[in-house]
């Protein structure tokens, strides 16, 4: 039987892993490779790695952290994929088919399109045709206004409000050939108040492609709530997985105890890199 996936999200900003709140406040968490190694040891189902850097710098310019430095995103991907025994979806800064190819070659299994797909929706279909729709994830951020869900369009200088309906865009994205949707409520980003259940239920009924729910996880019960009350295929979260040892293991153990169809929790006890 196919299992529901539990997916940690790592946010990367100019050489650092960061924690995000409301898409506007960022706190530095540490080194990418160590975090990926930990998630791999906890037999994470998958990993979503989003690069939200505003510059092309992948070095922390710090010599006192003893952390590896990276020349560019490919270099970083090559290094983290060495320690990742699970699929990696990489997002951020992808504008062309070449950008996709570079990331897949460096070790990504799937790529996530966001802003570029909004600017040029045909990128979704050409990418799907070239690489297979299964490796094209479209990441969609939205804001909640009462019962409305407005698509959020991020641009280089910050964000601009856009009153387009998120559901309309979701249906369009599916039609264009996306393989999966990463659906993220920006309003719930870092709020720990639970997922946007009613909208996720609606979307997961309306779409035939898998939906990954993101935004709002504050406790394991929130993950269970999504998997119980909606038809989403996967539940993703960032912050909740970064501050507790063996978090991914504990999450799956909790969900399994509630009778939810997740992969049995397991853990590796290999020596860590330093």
């Amino acid at each position, binding site marked *: *039987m*196919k*299992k*529901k*996936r539990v997916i940690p999200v790592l946010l990367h900003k100019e050489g650092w892993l960061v924690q995000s709140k409301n898409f506007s406040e960022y706190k530095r968490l540490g080194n990418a490779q160590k975090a990926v190694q930990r998630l791999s040891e906890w*037999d994470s*189902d*998958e990993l979503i790695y989003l690069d939200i850097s505003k510059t092309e710098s992948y070095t922390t310019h710090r010599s006192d952290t003893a952390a590896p430095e990276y020349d560019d995103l490919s270099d970083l991907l*090559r290094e983290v*994929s*060495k320690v*990742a*025994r*699970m*699929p990696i979806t990489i997002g951020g800064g992808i504008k062309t088919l070449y950008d996709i190819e570079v990331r*897949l*070659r*460096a*070790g990504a*299994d*799937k790529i996530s399109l966001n802003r570029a797909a909004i600017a040029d929706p045909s990128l979704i279909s050409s990418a*799907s*045709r*070239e*690489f*297979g*729709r*299964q*490796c094209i994830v479209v990441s969609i951020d939205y804001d909640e206004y009462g019962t409305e869900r407005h698509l959020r369009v991020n641009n280089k200088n910050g964000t601009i409000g856009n009153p387009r309906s998120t559901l309309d865009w979701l249906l369009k994205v599916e039609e264009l050939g996306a*393989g*999966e949707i990463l659906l993220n409520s920006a309003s719930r980003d870092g709020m720990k108040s639970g997922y946007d259940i009613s909208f996720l239920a609606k979307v997961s009924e309306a*779409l*035939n*492609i*898998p939906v990954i729910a993101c935004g709002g996880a504050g406790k394991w019960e929130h993950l269970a709530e999504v998997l119980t009350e909606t038809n989403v*295929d*996967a539940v993703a979260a960032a912050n909740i997985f970064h501050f507790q040892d063996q978090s991914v293991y504990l999450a799956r153990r909790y969900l399994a105890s509630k009778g939810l169809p997740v*992969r*049995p929790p*397991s853990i*590796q006890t290999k020596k860590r890199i330093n």
Partner: protein
Amino acid sequence: MDYGSGNVASVKNSFDRLGVENFVSNEVLDILKASHLVLPGVGAFKASMEKIEKKLPIDVLRAQVLLGKPLLGICVGMQVFAESGFEFEIHPGLNLIPGSEVIELPTKVPKPHVGWDSIEIQKSHPILNNIDNGADFYFVHSYFVSKIEDSSLIASCDYGVKFPAVLANNNLIGVQFHPEKSQNNGDTLLQNFVELIA
């Protein structure tokens, strides 16, 4: 074997972690020299076949398979063993398994089939040594290989339809899932593969 597509790096990383000597190449001499061959894959059937035709010495590969060298096809790397594929449009495959076709999963299930799913072992085979019936592997695909001989079906997976998860035809091994992304179960399978004797 490197044909410009595929998750070559991930497969290489897995063999490196297992301590298996390996190299990535599309050169004739390397293909002749290797004890085992791996055809990785991520992508659409036609795009992958076009790259394979352009980058790999197919006749040499075919001859090596006939001579009994073990070949592991992963995901699309397995699908191209088929006679023809029907993703986007019909396109011929390598035809290493004559009569087989690559067709789409049924419309009643969400596609792609992505994530961890269990396999049902149909037949004992050394490629599944130390792997339990019902073991989870990581899948990501919308198409599958159909019309293979029952004798080649080693393990199946059920997702709207029962499809081959593992097939074996003499020295030809194909897996629809990604062993390089399937943690312990995947590592065990890759180890089993390198222990197959030509």
